[in-house]
């Protein structure tokens, strides 16, 4: 069942940081920053689906946007096919955007309400000049076919479609420029569960068909379990664990991942499960806890966790975790 991924790195994110300045109460105080993404590094292999999970505000969407330079990151490097795209100038970046596409969460907000589907698709192709003008009409019909929309859809406006159909339009739009990598930012979160499954299966089918690589950002673990090859867990702007999906779901190492996984509802009331409950709220990303950022809520925290920030270490094969006590707790 498991897909075989040849380990060719398509995208390498290196120490990515995204800080947003916040208003301070006094002009004499030093400027404060929300450290939305703080020193995040990971690799994305060609043809795989890597999911980023975590609760709201952990920096998963910000990571996606920073990679695409939709918000200019504060620091770090993002290598795409060996090239640091953060160093590209505007023109080079525009050209590269054909390779990197994005699908947003809200299918109502991500399509211009004043453009027909035809205009939406056509514009995408025109900018990147992927298809010659006379062939564009055929290409548009082909795209609609891929995402399961009728040809009549071309002359309609986004508001004439349902949420699921709009998301299909969004996917067709992303495909229009022949991308290599698609960042799906909560791409199914706004949809009904039944529609979610349809869209997820569509994404899987398209991935196979066009050898796409997905960076799948989601807070929904069931969805992540369905679509991913590997999973990366984030907490307060940091990566806490990265592993193959099966490995992560079967034997999570980080206490936070364990808590997160035990929160997945199981549709079986007789099943007794051990639940890891977390107390307290997520601390403020403006002034995150010292040492391990999770120590304030971690049931296993010791003195060392408050002082020293744990590095991301490979504990098992391809299983990285940033926890001082990972080995201990694994037993």
């Amino acid at each position, binding site marked *: 069942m498991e897909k075989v991924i040849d380990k060719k790195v398509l995208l390498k994110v290196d120490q990515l940081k995204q800080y947003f300045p916040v208003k301070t109460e006094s002009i004499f105080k030093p400027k404060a920053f929300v450290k939305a993404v703080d020193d995040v590094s990971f690799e994305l292999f060609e043809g795989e689906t890597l999911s980023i999970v975590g609760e709201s505000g952990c920096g998963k969407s910000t990571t996606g946007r920073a990679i695409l330079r939709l918000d200019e990151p504060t620091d770090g490097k993002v290598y795409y096919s060996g090239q640091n795209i953060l160093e590209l100038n505007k023109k080079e970046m525009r050209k590269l955007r054909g390779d990197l596409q*994005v699908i*947003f969460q809200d299918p109502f907000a991500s399509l211009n*309400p004043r453009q027909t589907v035809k205009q939406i698709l056509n514009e995408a192709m025109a*900018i990147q000049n992927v298809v010659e003008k006379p062939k564009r009409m055929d290409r548009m019909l082909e795209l609609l076919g891929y995402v399961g929309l009728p040809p009549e859809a071309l002359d309609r406006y986004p508001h004439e479609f349902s949420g699921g159909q709009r998301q299909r339009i*969004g996917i067709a739009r992303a495909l229009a420029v022949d991308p290599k990598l698609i960042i799906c930012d909560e791409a199914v979160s706004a949809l009904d569960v039944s529609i979610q499954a349809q869209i997820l299966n569509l994404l899987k089918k398209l991935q196979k068909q066009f050898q796409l690589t997905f960076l799948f950002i989601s807070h929904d673990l069931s969805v992540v379990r369905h679509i991913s090859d590997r999973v990366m867990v984030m907490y307060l702007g940091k990566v806490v664990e990265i592993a193959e999906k099966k490995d992560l779901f079967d034997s999570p190492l980080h206490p936070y991942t364990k808590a997160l996984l035990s929160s997945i509802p199981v549709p079986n009331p007789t099943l007794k499960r051990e639940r890891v409950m977390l107390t307290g709220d997520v601390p403020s990303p403006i002034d995150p806890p010292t040492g391990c950022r999770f120590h304030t809520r971690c049931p296993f925290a010791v003195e060392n966790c408050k002082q020293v920030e744990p590095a991301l270490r490979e504990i098992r094969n391809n299983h990285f975790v940033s926890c001082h006590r990972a080995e201990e707790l694994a037993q």
Partner: protein
Amino acid sequence: MLMFIIRRLVQTVPVIIGVTFVVFFIMQLVPGDPAVLLAGEGASKDTIEAIREQLGLNRPLYVQYFDYLMNLANGDFGVSLKNSQPVLDEILVRLPITLELALFSILITIVLGMGAGIISAVKPYSMQDVGVMLVALIGISLPSFWFGLMLMYFFSVKLQILPVAGWDSLLHVILPALTLGAGGAAIVARMTRSSMLDVIRQDYIRTARAKGLRERLIIYKHALRNALIPVITVVGLQFGALLGGTVLVESIFAINGLGRMIVDAIRMRDLPMVQGGVLFASLIFVIVNLFVDVFYRFFNKRIELN
């Protein structure tokens, strides 16, 4: 669309009748008797009484009002109490002047206002944004009679590049139109800015960026077109305020337009003239609103469907 326009036109009829009602009865509340003013000071009681009789002012008010309405329905706006000229003739001379002034003013409002709003919204919270918005705030705060006089002093008296007052050439239009349009431009600028900022944060703007679209195209093609709807509404409303403003501006710049005519007529208690003038002014306003509604529908495809 045609049905919509017809329906809107029918809706304007009660509005116009309402306007005649209000204008007619408010003029009755204004102190001063037109008969006394016409007869002149020291006229005998008999003379005044005779004038009343002649003008029909001695009849009950509701009779006068219905009489007035019936005449209106026949296209008869009455004759001026002052010089016995038909009111309609006078209005038709004055109206084009006011319309021209209003048109140039609204043009200034739209061009200056939207331009400034876009400049602000493209780089929010930057120096250029703060600067433009400061000027807009000043524009809203300045009373037009003072602003008009200042413009007059600076451009006509000091620099002597524009005429002081009157209404002869296109050069004469500039200062009054600027005076009249400035306040509206400031409001439109602020509206455009906030509306643009709203739209720029939308995902489809991000999508457009992600596609690799040029920033200029993102702003004009995607952002501005979506941001325009509330701005159109404001421009329409602003046109109403502008008509009120003509009263002041026409007086300052000695322009013989509809606004000044109404002011003079009120001073003379020239009832038919006031009624005719106000009626026409409200007619213009109603028509402009109709245009805004139609334009709005045309622009927002979603409204048309619902």
